[in-house]
């Protein structure tokens, strides 16, 4: 018999005929857990500012009120992800591990262009079936860089980018107020306002604003940066005060019990939670 075959390269389409047949019968496939989303990034004077909202949706229900959409790729680069949550999470983790191996192999800090190439080559190979739209930003020896990567594998290298369902609202804010070489506070405010525009005007985005500031020397991961949608405090109380119902009589009864056995358990033994 032939030796064990390694995994075939590329995407396996063997279930597609079966799935189409099932859909015709009436069994609809489970929907993907999408992130809805507004993600954005800009290049400012000293580096890159990335921003994201924190709502994850499953069709019209909010699945996660405070998910983290800014993923770690390397110490000097982070990647925001929109689209299917599993796809963005796994894709960024895969490329993050590839970057780490590459760093050990070359002995150098990884470059943002490398991450860009790795991401786009993988997404193109899967022909858009991996629904991951990413905003990749970081600072390396050649300076700050910002890329937007689409699910089919095309990339754009721009001074400011937005992705996700709230991208039009965020992009409108950028087009209105972006200037090259902004100061850090101005840049953070602009990204916060862009994500807020997405949060308040797009139904797929909501909750808080997360920000990540990457410079040559350090990374500031501010989660949450702005809690724009705090749950309201309950003003009234439906509990009944003591005395609402008149107490007619009170009787205290002791429940009789016998001690059958006593066992002293040593405090250092851990509970068996298997």
């Amino acid at each position, binding site marked *: 018999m032939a030796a064990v075959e390694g995994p075939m390269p590329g995407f396996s389409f063997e279930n597609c005929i079966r799935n189409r047949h099932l859909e015709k019968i009436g069994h609809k496939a489970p929907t993907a857990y999408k992130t809805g989303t507004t993600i954005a990034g800009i290049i400012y004077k000293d580096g890159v500012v990335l921003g994201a909202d924190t709502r994850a949706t499953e069709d019209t229900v909010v699945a996660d009120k405070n998910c983290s959409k800014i993923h770690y790729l390397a110490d000097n680069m982070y990647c925001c992800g929109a689209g299917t949550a599993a796809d963005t999470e796994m894709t960024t983790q895969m490329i993050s591990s590839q970057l780490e191996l590459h760093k050990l192999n070359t002995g150098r800090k990884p470059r943002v262009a490398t991450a860009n190439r790795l991401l786009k080559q993988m997404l193109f190979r899967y022909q858009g079936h991996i629904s991951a739209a990413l905003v990749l930003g970081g600072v390396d020896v050649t300076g700050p860089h910002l890329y937007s990567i689409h699910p089919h594998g095309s990339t754009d*290298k721009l001074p400011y980018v937005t992705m996700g369902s709230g991208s039009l609202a965020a992009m*409108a804010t950028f087009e*209105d107020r972006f200037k090259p070489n902004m100061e850090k506070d101005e840049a953070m405010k602009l990204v916060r306002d862009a994500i807020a525009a997405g949060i308040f005007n797009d139904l797929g985005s909501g909750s808080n604003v997360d920000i990540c500031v990457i410079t040559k020397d350090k990374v500031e991961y501010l989660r949450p940066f702005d809690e724009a949608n705090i749950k309201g405090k309950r003003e009234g109380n439906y509990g009944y005060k003591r005395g609402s119902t008149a107490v007619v009589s009170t009787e205290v009864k002791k429940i009789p019990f016998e001690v059958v056995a006593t066992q002293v358990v040593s405090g250092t033994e851990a509970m068996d939670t298997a």
Partner: protein
Amino acid sequence: MEASLQMEFWRNGPQPGALYNFPGSQIWNQNEPTKRTLYPSVTGTSVLGLKFNDGVVIAGDKLGSYGSMARFRDLSRVLKVNDQVVVGASGDYADYQFLSEIIEQRVIEEECLNDGFGYTPSSLFSWLTRVMYNRRSNINPLWNTYVVAGWENNAPFLGYVDKIGTAYQAPTISSGYGAYIAQPLLRDALEKKPNMNVKDAIETIDRCMKVLYYRDARSLNKYELAIVTKDGVEIRSPVTSQPNWEIAHLIKGYE
């Protein structure tokens, strides 16, 4: 029991569960002419509206797109109805021309009655809603979105009517792509400055028209502005916004 099970749900309609030739589908007699609107041909893009402290301003660019072709670059999509009301239209230009003639004729008839009454913004808004919803109910819509703006009862008026008859009033209105791109900017501007004067309002609208020119692929940077205050209607046409391409030198290649 038997009789109720055989009761008809409706007459001449589709059988539950059966296929139905919905009007507008491809299956019809090839010899019969089309008797209802199927799709728009020459179209106008977004119309924006913004209320400020003493009035309301609306704007729409001067482009009539023929699909992806920028065919007519000097169209007027803003109509002055009378000294209190203006209407802006987006969508099919032919349907707008049809309706604007009807509106103008009605205004003349009102004047002829000579009773001191004319169209107020809310009466025109109400009439427009009924017309649009009625056409939609006959599966023969006027393929437009109208923005009605005016001055009434010492207060500004701003409303939106859709081709399916959706109608509402709000301090900021935008149709088409404006709803995704300009509406966040308009809402934010109004939140930061709830009591704008006319200069601020025009400046906000100009910023929004500029962003729309950058990001809407069927737009033009030449537009018309209509300002309604207690003193009447002012139409400014054409207004050209200056795009800023300063960032162009920062972009080289795609990776």
